[in-house]
């Protein structure tokens, strides 16, 4: 075990795949572009050479049937990982994911579970517009039977990928190309990050900022800047969009009394709505002000860089938003 080894986010996923395929013959990777870095970055580096095209299966553009095949293989005892290099295209696979995988265990009375990982990559920015930019985690989080994980660090990417592969239920693993270059410490051994457990990225006593995935980095950056102005933000990275770690949010609220939810998805019926609803139900007595949400506007992703800049929340507008919030409500 090396303590000081740093790894890129994408290579942390790569290491998880290498290790899990090596220890478990049932694990295989299938999807469009698994042998092409253009599609999947370096997450699949060396897999084809090591495990062959039987277990690293590049496919035609057939999201529905390929995802269904992953579900069927899982029903037949395998542990497939099905990758969608752009999660916009994953919409073609809603039937096998929702109708089949999510419902299978329940509607068959617990006779057979579906240990499949559906991996969707959010791949936005760069003027790619509405159909090459979408973050659709909230849609999957709505569905009983699915788990949804969204790691923000290399450590969590490896640990949650391994947890997803080992889980007996269908897990939607969502990452973001904006995270791929991030480097951090990653243990060499196999380990898991528990699905459904959030983490406090920065402690603070003035306000709780709940985030997930790429937005956790924006949250931390904003919190560090606000610390210079003596505003102490507690940053929570939920890591799983389903199940949500309710306890970590409520415990933080007991301390701060104020909640801002930050999400890289849309506002209506989204991840931020769910966090807000949980707090309204279970933590209202700790609230000392209204809940604020910072999300994408309810608007498709634009192409023009000028519009893109206005579309995605960044630390500048998070800082401004939190300051105005505290001026209004903090006593």
């Amino acid at each position, binding site marked *: 075990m090396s303590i000081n080894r740093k790894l890129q986010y994408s290579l942390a996923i790569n290491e998880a795949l290498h290790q899990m395929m090596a220890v478990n013959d049932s694990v295989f990777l299938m999807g469009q572009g698994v042998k092409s870095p253009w599609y999947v970055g370096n997450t699949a580096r060396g897999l084809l050479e090591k495990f062959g095209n039987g277990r690293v299966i590049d*496919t035609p553009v057939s999201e529905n049937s390929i995802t269904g095949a992953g579900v*069927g293989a899982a029903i037949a005892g395998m542990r497939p990982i099905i990758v969608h290099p752009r999660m916009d295209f994953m919409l073609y696979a809603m039937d096998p994911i929702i109708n089949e995988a999510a419902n299978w265990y329940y509607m068959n009375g617990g006779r057979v579970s579906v240990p499949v990982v559906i991996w969707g990559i959010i791949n936005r920015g760069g003027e790619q517009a509405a159909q090459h930019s979408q973050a659709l985690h909230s849609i999957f989080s709505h569905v009983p039977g699915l788990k949804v994980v969204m790691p923000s660090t290399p450590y969590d990417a490896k640990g949650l990928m391994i947890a997803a592969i080992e889980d007996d239920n269908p897990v939607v693993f969502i990452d973001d190309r904006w995270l791929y270059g991030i480097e951090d410490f990653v243990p060499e051994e196999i380990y898991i990050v528990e699905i459904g457990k959030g983490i406090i990225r920065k402690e603070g006593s003035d306000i709780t900022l709940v985030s997930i995935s790429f937005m956790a980095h924006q949250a931390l950056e904003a919190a560090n800047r606000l610390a210079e102005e003596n505003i102490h933000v507690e940053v929570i990275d939920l890591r799983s969009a389903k199940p949500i770690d309710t306890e970590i949010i409520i415990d933080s609220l007991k301390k701060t009394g104020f909640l801002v939810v930050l999400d890289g998805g849309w506002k209506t019926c989204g991840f931020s709505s769910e966090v807000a609803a949980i707090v309204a139900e279970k933590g209202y007595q700790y609230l000392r002000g209204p809940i604020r949400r910072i999300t994408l506007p309810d608007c498709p992703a634009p192409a023009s860089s000028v519009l893109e800049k206005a579309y995605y929340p960044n630390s500048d507008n998070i800082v401004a938003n939190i300051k105005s919030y505290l001026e209004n409500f903090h006593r």
Partner: protein
Amino acid sequence: MGYSRELLANLYRTMVRIRFCEESLVKPILKGEIICPCHLYSGQEAVAAGICESLNEKDYVFGTHRSHGHFLAMGGAMRDLLAEIFTRETGCSRGRGGSMHLIDPGKGIMGAAPIVAGTISLAMGAALASNLRGEKRVAVSFFGDGAAGEGVLYECLNFAALKKLPLVFVCENNFYSTHMPIQECRVNGDIYKIAEPFSVKSSKVDGNDVLKVYEAGKEAIEFCRKGEGPVFLECKTYRFRGHVGPDDNIQGTHTDIRPREEVESWLKKDPITRFEKYLLENNLLSEKLLDGIKKEISDEVEESIEFAKNSPYPEAKELTRYVYK
């Protein structure tokens, strides 16, 4: 020719077992004892019986909304099936699935689902799993003519051919996609031809002739076991009852779908009476033996219905059990 008596009796028994079981549901449905929608398999028995005869419990069968017949033909217990249709805790899916979600992994019955064409890709995945593990297991996907309208079927034909998967596509063409006759769904009524451009071996079979289905199924399954799959079979057949429930969908009745003459002409091609006639005329099996089978099945149906009706319902407090494992 040269079929063993055992094989002939098996085929006959399976068909009678399906028919008697299906027909036993008519009264309970009409009386409201069964609430769950039932898509009866009566009339199509030769397909399930003929195909499944060449499969074993290590193979993988995936079905549809109309899969009571597949379940029984693979050797599923009639008690488990009927208890599920009555949505009892003792059913094969513990009353959580009902008539359209039938499963018994120990018998190779991997599940059924009513999303049209929704399980074809699952069967393909099971075939892929068999290949990856270097096994000789074959997957069979049963689906109806309506599924030929869904894009995923064509994706599967392509991918299964590309990877030479041990998958038998079995299209049960009963000429109606719920209410819509096939000529209103497609220009070419010969569905097996859709497999040709994918270089998938395909053929059309008289789905009311159990021996023809058996021959075609056996050959297709053997091909797949030898690694020469996939294969596509179109079995032309006819459901004696409506899309759902016991109504016969005759024109002029309140469901008003099929011409009376058409239904009557197919009733004359009943796969069971046809096979019975063949067996007796050729002195292959005795009337006594066939009567014995019918008696044995009648008893099984009676016993299974009793079992189902007397079984407990799932408990309300267990509502959310089985959402996650």
